[in-house]
């Protein structure tokens, strides 16, 4: 039964990914391309983190290397007349990721845990600071730009063509990553995460194993970077930046590192969120950060993990009693979200340079400011009262409902445990 649902869900998602974009504008098509690329990047990262148990803070290195490799190949085709099929450009990203992954992986995997994380961080930072000075390789501060060449009847001039090319590459890559988990080496990767010492005492060379896991992860990160280069037709040293490495960590954890598709979910949601919210609000990074912190605190399994938890216990969840609290909690969260957004946006308006200038010109010391298409008094009770009320009411409802939801889940866990014991 579960299989059927999984298959159905897969077909549905693919149908949306294939059928929806032609109905959208170029902006959203581009956002969806970026969403797919971010999803692949996060899945590649999670092979190392979720399956191999190695948390890298420098995965931007392989993403960036993949992008630059593709740019060089694209330039060679454009200027040098090299004949190479445009749809296969990301292969250059894969090759570069693999190569750099093997070399750097050899060093990084000599250490574990915090030291491993720091080595990877240093590695990406090194590239980030070297790249602007290495004109020939990374194009200096401006970076490299080039043009996609038409191939096999495709012009590759429209966003939709690039979208479908990306979709094919990402689907194929994620399919390969899934197949990886079904190989002997994929099982060994999980063992490595659980207990590296025992792996060694079972006759496996732990260092070589870790290095290969690292290189495979870097290869797929390189493909993701390569796809970005194909889409943007340019790359610069900012690709090696800490924010790129941090972003992929964030996507993975919010999506859920313990679930295979979790990172893709996190990446898709956050990329879409960034596209939609960054136009409307300057504080979108703050909202993203708040969401990340809240997920880590109250749903550390991530979105994918929470969904899986519900699917696993579907039959034993007392839905009739659960629906009420869940609906209430959703409504309360919404109230708190509205309250938070109002407070943040008001503060943003008050501290903006625009408002500072306004204050200088105005006769009164604290003139009213504009937000949400209305005018607000900086010290007005009607300005701060409603958002604070929303926050308090939402919080009180959540606190009350939390106990009920936790109690219901305790029941579910108990039924699951007794079932497991009697079944054994």
């Amino acid at each position, binding site marked *: 039964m579960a299989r059927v649902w999984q298959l159905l869900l897969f077909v549905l998602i693919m149908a949306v990914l294939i059928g929806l974009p032609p109905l959208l504008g170029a902006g959203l098509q581009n956002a969806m391309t970026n969403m797919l690329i971010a999803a692949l990047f996060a899945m590649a990262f999670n092979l190392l983190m979720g399956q191999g148990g190695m948390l890298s803070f420098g995965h931007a290195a392989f993403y960036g290397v993949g992008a630059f490799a593709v740019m060089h190949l694209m330039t060679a085709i454009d200027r040098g007349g090299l004949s190479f099929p445009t749809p296969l450009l990301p292969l250059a990203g894969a090759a570069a990721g693999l190569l750099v992954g093997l070399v750097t992986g050899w060093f990084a995997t000599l250490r574990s845990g915090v030291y491993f994380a720091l080595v990877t961080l240093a590695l990406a930072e090194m590239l980030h600071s070297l790249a602007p000075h290495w004109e020939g390789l990374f194009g200096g501060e401006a970076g490299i730009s080039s043009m996609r060449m038409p191939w096999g009847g495709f012009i590759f001039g429209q966003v939709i063509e690039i979208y479908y090319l990306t979709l094919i590459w990402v689907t194929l890559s994620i399919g390969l990553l899934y197949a990886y988990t*079904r*190989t*002997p080496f994929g099982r*060994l990767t999980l*063992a490595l995460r*659980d207990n590296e010492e025992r792996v*060694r005492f079972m006759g*496996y060379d732990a260092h070589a194993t870790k290095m290969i896991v690292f290189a495979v992860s870097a290869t797929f990160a390189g493909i993701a970077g390569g796809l970005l280069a194909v889409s943007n037709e340019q790359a610069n040293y900012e690709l090696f930046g800490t924010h790129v490495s941090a972003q992929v960590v964030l996507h993975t954890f919010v999506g859920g590192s313990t679930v295979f598709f979790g990172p893709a979910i996190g990446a898709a949601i956050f990329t879409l969120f960034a596209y939609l919210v960054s136009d409307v609000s300057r504080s979108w990074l703050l909202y993203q950060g708040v969401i990340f912190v809240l997920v880590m605190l109250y749903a550390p399994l991530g979105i994918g993990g929470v969904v899986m938890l519900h699917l696993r216990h579907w039959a034993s969840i007392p839905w009739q009693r659960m629906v009420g609290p869940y609906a209430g909690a959703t409504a309360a969260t919404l109230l708190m979200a509205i309250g938070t957004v109002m407070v943040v946006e008001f503060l943003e308006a008050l501290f903006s340079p625009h408002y500072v200038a306004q204050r200088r010109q105005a006769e009164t010391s604290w003139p009213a400011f504009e937000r949400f298409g209305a005018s607000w008094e900086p010290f007005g009770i009607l300005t701060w009262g409603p958002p604070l009320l929303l926050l308090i009411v939402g919080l009180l409802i959540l606190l009350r409902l939390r106990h009920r939801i936790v109690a219901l889940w305790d029941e579910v866990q108990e039924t699951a445990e007794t079932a497991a014991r009697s079944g054994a």
Partner: protein
Amino acid sequence: MREDRVLDLRGIAKSFGSARILEGVELTVRRGERHAIIGPNGAGKSTLFNLISGQFSPTSGSILLNGREIAGRPPHQINRMGLSRSFQITNIYHRLSVFENLRLGVMARHGLRFSLFRRVAALRAVNEESEALLQRIRLEDRRDRPAGDLTYSEQRALEIGMTLATAPEVILLDEPTAGMSQEETHYVIELIREVTKGKTLLVVEHDMNVVFSLCDRISVLVYGELLATGTPEEIRANRAVQEAYLGEEVA
């Protein structure tokens, strides 16, 4: 006589900084025997195991496995040469299923160490061997449970199963019955007796009843030095051993 000695320790010494843990240890383990190492806490038994299995290198001396030097080699190489060990503190893959824990060992023995292009479900020999091993350690009904969910004695049985999974010629068991009730001890000892048939066993054990009933020969380690080696009767009768270690227990 060479074929008779499967494991040969010559002049083994180990120091950590200024602390001397082992000194001049000479030990021969014969093929097919069950050999126990006993001694008070802190005598260096675990260190000796760590040296033989490759966790540490000895400060001096040599360790021969079937005539080949293994002192200072990494654990995975020693394992591939036919020596496998268990751990005093349970050392399993907690989040993986019991079956998967065993299969990883079987895979290693089949040389599937970097196998990226085959489906694990299609490896018939590996899967059949893993199932057989699962039955031998009597954990069939726990097959798909995460190993971390097992009871303590089940985990100890799994620990032994994982040690056997690489089909070693020489098996090192580090306190297999530590922390067990009498009933559980009995169960594990029967298991060990059964699964080590035709193999060489070197075991560290505190329970004297277990040692005297299970093993063919016993070595006594006291303060980093080997006091005596012999059959259970010889050890029981040995004055030095009685004074240094066994004391009232067997006198």
